[in-house]
């Protein structure tokens, strides 16, 4: 009877089959569908194998033949599954990226971006010219070595093979700089047919298109290049030699605060992004975006604080235009506080003023509590938590965007309602939401009601907790109020830890 334990592997294999099926439901990728079939066949092989042990070998039945048949079929399907998996790596999906090696992900993202850019410029510069550029890089660059040039698209599988031969620590840097050189040549090729502004526009369109399929990772490579072309190249073009010296001196002064600044020093009238990308590649992927924005905001401040007033004005104008443009065309960047690119002391217009991450704002606007910023996050499907006193019909925003969660401050025991006196529940809800959603927006609309229910002191303590959470977890807190509902001293107290916006 003890031979019954031979059924144990069959039971485990059945578990694999169920999990593969569930994983296929989440990820909807052929790897999991083929794995489900394969694990089912594999469990049948183990079942028939176990039954053979239970029946003995005195009289063999055709059941014995099923073991190798199911086994071979299971291996065949698993082999297809692994091949599909390799294909998925060539253009990694958002959900996969956290599992894959950083350099492999960067190859996939940069290749997808470049292919999209090539697709957009092909009609202008011609297939032959693009093929010539790609062939040149395939001969000279270790990342592109041996890549076949076909229909102006990049040979990602070969690139992924090539990256295996490059030292793992240098891999990401090599990918960034290789693509930078390729883009330089492609931009150069386009310059014969169109203006620099148009080329940047096409590159930016490619970035926005690729983002929608492959997520925010594409900005790690794309944003520095975009900012360089949109803001810093025109600024450098209008710099005198004395001005360049001043810029370099200021950059060197910031090195201690941000080591990456050193890589942006101006040499021969140009900023070489190669060094910057090599430095960027050494960072943890989670901190790359915020560091890019921080470094370029510092660079913007350098240009805005030089003695040459004309350059200062030009810098502020270009940065203001670029930031407004980026918030409109690339809303995902607001999660990383792209508005911080704006020079110190220069105010943005409209709702852009409340888009900084890690900041908390007090909006003194009694007549219109329906905030533009909330409309903006809903429109662009950004994560937001709206805590409001509005009655249920107004909560239908919840259905407009899956990323916007609405909580109704009410004592009624209904779905989506939280009692205004349950500050602990509110605090935990906000904490969970901003932990799970990077760069989330929390709108607390109903501070007056919370004060009525809990008293001024307790509500201010609660608000202070939210401000700290938003600061630490890089979210933004927006508190719209009616100033007439507060005494001057209460208002002054709120303004001490919230940035007042009138």
């Amino acid at each position, binding site marked *: 009877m003890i*031979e019954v*334990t*031979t059924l*144990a*592997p*069959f039971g*485990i*294999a059945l*578990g*694999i089959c169920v*999990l*593969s099926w*569930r*994983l296929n439901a*989440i*990820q909807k990728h052929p790897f999991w569908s083929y794995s489900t079939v394969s*694990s089912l066949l*594999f469990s049948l092989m*183990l079942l028939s*194998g*176990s039954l*053979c*042990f239970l029946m*003995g*070998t005195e*009289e*063999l*039945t*055709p059941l*014995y*033949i099923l*073991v*190798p*048949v199911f*086994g*071979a079929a299971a*291996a*065949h399907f*698993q*082999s297809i599954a*692994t*091949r599909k*998996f*390799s294909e998925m*790596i060539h253009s990694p999906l958002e*959900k996969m990226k*956290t*599992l*894959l*090696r*950083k350099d*492999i992900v960067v190859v996939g993202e940069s290749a997808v971006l470049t292919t999209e850019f090539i697709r957009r410029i092909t009609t202008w510069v011609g297939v032959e010219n693009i093929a010539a550029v790609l062939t040149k890089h395939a001969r000279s660059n270790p990342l592109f070595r041996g890549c076949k040039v076909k229909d102006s698209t990049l040979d990602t599988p070969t690139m*992924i093979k090539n990256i*295996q031969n490059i030292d793992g620590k240098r891999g990401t840097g090599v990918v960034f700089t290789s693509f930078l050189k390729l883009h330089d040549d492609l931009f150069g090729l386009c310059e014969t047919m169109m203006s620099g502004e148009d080329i940047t526009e096409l590159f930016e369109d490619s970035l926005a298109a690729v983002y929608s399929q492959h997520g925010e990772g594409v900005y790690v490579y794309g944003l520095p290049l975009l900012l360089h072309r949109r803001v810093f190249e025109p600024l450098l073009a209008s710099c005198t030699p004395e001005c360049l010296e001043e810029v370099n001196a200021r950059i060197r002064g910031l090195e201690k605060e941000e080591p990456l600044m050193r890589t942006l020093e101006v040499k021969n009238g140009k900023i070489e992004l190669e060094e910057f990308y090599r430095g960027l590649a050494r960072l943890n992927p989670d901190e790359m975006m915020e560091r890019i924005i921080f470094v370029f905001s510092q660079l913007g401040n350098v240009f805005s604080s030089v003695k040459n007033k004309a350059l200062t004005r030009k810098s502020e104008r270009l940065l203001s235009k670029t930031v407004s443009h980026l918030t409109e065309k690339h809303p995902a960047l607001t999660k990383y506080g792209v508005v911080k690119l704006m020079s110190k002391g220069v105010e943005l217009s409209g709702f852009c003023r409340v888009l900084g991450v890690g900041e908390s704002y007090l909006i003194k606007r009694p007549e219109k509590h329906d905030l533009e910023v909330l409309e903006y996050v809903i429109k662009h499907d950004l994560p937001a938590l709206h805590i409001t006193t509005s009655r249920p019909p107004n909560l239908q925003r919840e259905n407009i965007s899956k990323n916007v969660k609405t909580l109704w401050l009410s004592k009624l025991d209904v779905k989506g309602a939280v009692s205004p006196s349950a500050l602990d529940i509110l605090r935990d809800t906000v904490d969970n939401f901003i932990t*799970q959603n990077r760069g989330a927006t929390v709108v607390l609309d109903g501070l007056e009601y919370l004060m009525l229910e809990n008293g001024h002191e307790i509500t201010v303590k609660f608000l202070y907790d939210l401000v700290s959470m938003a600061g630490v977890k890089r979210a933004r807190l927006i508190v719209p109020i009616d100033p007439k509902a507060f005494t001057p001293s209460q208002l002054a107290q709120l303004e001490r830890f919230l940035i007042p916006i009138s």
Partner: protein
Amino acid sequence: MMGFDTIRVIVLLITPLGLYFWTKCTLNYLQITRYFRNPGSWRWTLIAMLGIFGAYFTWLAYLLTGENFLWMGFVVFGVMGTLPFLLGNLESYLSLRKVAR
């Protein structure tokens, strides 16, 4: 009704085909492990592949020799060939569910 030796011969004839597919599959897995940031669970997959080979050959030895004690090898190799896959899938399922949320 098939004869005693016919079944053994058929099994032995199909075995190389199975071996070919399992080897191809193992090589694919070896390739995949190189793509991962943390290839831990994928390396366990290779142990699982060895387990599958082990379980199949123990079963084949049982078929050819008729030695009953070989069921123990089948269980040990069978568990070795399935458990890493189960744990790997469970890990992926839990992390993907977290990401999906």
